[in-house]
């Protein structure tokens, strides 16, 4: 076969944006139809480098590359996976969890980790080392990967926890900056049914929910609390705690038990791009939080819920991010070590007092972190909330970041779109170690994203905007 010259890459200059809808930037988008395309693009990267992009669910600029090349990994989604008897499955990096679930659930398998949306690719999930409601039991997705195929600027390699573990763990949570993930072997857990047995408790305040989680999370495989970050005073941090486990076949009603692995996950409606920017404001969010809280049962045990309802409630509405309007929104997600509960409380107080327009927030207890230097989860409490864009957020969130960092916590890079660059090395103290591994496979700085330009993850300074050494 004749090698294709780089200039023949069928790229189109396209404005791209993160899930938060803020600050689109324009890149040349190239469909990643095969590993050869990745190798070709990395060999002839152009002036402003390359980054891979999945389904664009990172909130900020992790999958953007202004003026450069973006490899659209969703093109890499065939063939259909087959699950081995031990649950191991080889999947192309562009496959979505949605597509994977549709294939494997009817056969009695689930995914080891799912974030709050199933519309993420496997490659993106690994690059962000995503976590889910089972982090306290199973850790993040990196712990369930046996092998990766990674196209780097210095060649395509097979890596895993036992094969070049440094590069493997630099890639897990590495935000796509160590190479283009082409394929992964992951281990799926077996399930008897596609239903969960769920216990729900409504709590009156933050202390109550934290006490319940501390005392009882270990009894459940999955646990998360939806927390009201708008209400102030006595009911600060009131929550709806839902915890559950996959149901056994014997626990289903006779009708459900006939088809225990029946998997349905529909997107019922899609938000059109017509919402004004002010719709999500303090007043509407107070009413929304109130409604969610009131609608939840005070206490209910053993309710059977489907996979989609329990794990992906927001996926029922397609493009729900459009509700925030043209200006968009951002997410603030932090983790604080156990013992820093006062910082968590003061953060929620600060957000509520500022009248920040936050929709439902999520509180969860993380188990221990994994060996990946840039992986977000560490043992402690994580809080995540969406905030409509407003200029006041800079001062508010900068103040909260300071307290979080001082307490030994950090922000989640896959969600970030505004943290101060100088905090990154403090929040991720193994940054230099990660940079050294990265330099081994990308000595010329070919891999770059807007996130990297903004936070200088790869250490290109002093050039302020991350122009690579070559240009």
């Amino acid at each position, binding site marked *: 076969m004749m090698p294709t010259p780089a200039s023949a890459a069928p790229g189109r*200059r396209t*404005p791209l944006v993160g899930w*938060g809808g*803020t*600050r*689109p*930037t*324009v*890149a040349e988008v190239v469909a990643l139809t095969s590993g050869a395309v990745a190798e070709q693009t990395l060999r002839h990267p152009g002036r*402003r480098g390359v980054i891979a992009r999945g389904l664009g669910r990172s909130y*900020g*600029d992790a999958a953007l*590359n*202004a*003026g*450069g090349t973006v490899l659209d990994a969703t093109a890499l989604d065939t063939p259909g996976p087959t699950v081995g008897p031990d649950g191991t499955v080889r999947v192309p990096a562009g496959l979505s969890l949605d597509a994977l679930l549709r294939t494997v659930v009817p056969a009695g398998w689930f995914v080891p980790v799912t974030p709050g949306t199933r519309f993420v690719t496997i490659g993106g999930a690994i690059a962000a080392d995503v976590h889910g409601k089972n982090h306290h039991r199973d850790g993040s997705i990196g712990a369930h990967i046996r092998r990766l195929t990674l196209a780097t600027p210095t060649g395509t390699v097979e890596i895993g926890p036992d094969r070049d573990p440094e590069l493997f763990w630099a890639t897990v949570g590495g935000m796509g900056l160590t190479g283009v993930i082409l394929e992964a072997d992951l281990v799926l857990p077996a399930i008897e049914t596609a239903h969960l047995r769920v216990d729900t408790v409504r709590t009156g305040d933050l202390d109550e929910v934290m006490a319940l989680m501390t005392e009882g999370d270990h009894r459940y495989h999955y646990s998360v609390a939806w927390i009201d970050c708008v209400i102030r005073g006595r009911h600060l941090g009131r929550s709806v705690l839902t915890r559950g486990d996959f149901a056994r076949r014997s626990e289903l009603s006779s009708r459900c038990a006939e088809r225990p692995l029946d998997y349905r996950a529909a997107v019922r409606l899609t938000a059109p791009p017509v919402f004004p*920017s002010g719709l999500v404001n303090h007043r509407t969010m107070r009413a929304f939080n109130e409604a969610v809280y009131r609608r939840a049962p005070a206490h209910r045990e053993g309710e059977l819920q489907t996979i989609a309802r329990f794990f992906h409630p927001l996926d029922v509405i397609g493009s729900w991010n459009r509700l925030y309007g*043209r*200006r*968009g929104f*951002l997410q603030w997600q932090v983790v604080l070590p156990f013992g820093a509960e006062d910082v968590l409380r003061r953060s929620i107080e600060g957000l509520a007092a500022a009248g920040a327009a936050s929709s439902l927030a999520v509180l969860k207890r993380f188990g221990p972190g994994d060996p990946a230097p840039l992986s977000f989860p560490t043992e402690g409490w994580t809080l995540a909330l969406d905030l409509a*864009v*407003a*200029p006041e*957020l*800079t*001062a508010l969130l900068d103040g909260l970041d300071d307290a979080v960092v001082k307490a030994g916590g950090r922000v989640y890079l896959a969600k970030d*779109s*505004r943290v*101060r*660059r*100088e905090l990154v090395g403090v929040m991720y103290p193994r940054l230099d170690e990660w940079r050294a591994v990265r330099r081994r496979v990308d000595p010329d700085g070919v891999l770059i994203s*807007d996130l990297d*330009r*903004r936070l200088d993850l790869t250490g290109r300074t*002093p*050039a*302020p*905007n*991350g*122009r690579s050494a070559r240009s």
Partner: protein
Amino acid sequence: MNDALGLPQSILVLGGGSELARAVVARLLAARPASVVLGGRPGSDALAGAAAEAAAAGATSVTTVAFDATDPASLLAAVDDVFDGHGDVDLVLVAFGVLGDQTACESDPLEAVEVATVDYTSAVVAGLAAARRLRRQGHGTLVALSSVAGERVRRANFVYGSAKAGMDGFYQGLTDALVGSGVQVVVVRPGFVTTRMTAGMKPPPLATDAAAVAEAVVAALAKGSGTVWVPGLLRPVFSGLRHLPRPLWRRVPG
């Protein structure tokens, strides 16, 4: 790279010595450190003062680039030099301008040409030169300091006002031309600003100051492309004044 709220990490100011520009730079640096390039008249004291201010306010680096706003070719060369030599520019602030002496302009047409060249012709060159480079880098913000004087031109300063009217119209069109390019344009229309340029004039109602303009610029950056009035009340006021009968309008004092 601009963050989600539009705060830049590298700034190019054209007209770096201007008081409004200095206030905007100080406000941006208070939020995030950034590298700053200040463009202006070679050897100008104001430019040197602005550079010292930026360094003290936490700029990661401060450099100056010389151009003469009465010479559009020198401006074009300066913009290209900065983009060639400094890497990405996240935010370009077009802040140069002259008020001119209306009486002198009316008696000496060449005096008016200078006002028109600085306030219109060079502003066009700055916009096109910056847009070309920002479009290529795929991201960035262009902030242009216009004026309410261009919203409805007055008898008292119609040379300056007409140049600002043209300049404002140009940047409105440029905003639309750059949709989908990753480049945002913010057009700022301050009212009467108490600065060196307006020293000795009696401030009219709704006069504002440089700090208020800077605050409005930062707020506008979070919202993306658009037009911002300072103070905001000027927008409804001018939508009324636009329809004021002409015999009354021409008596509005200077």
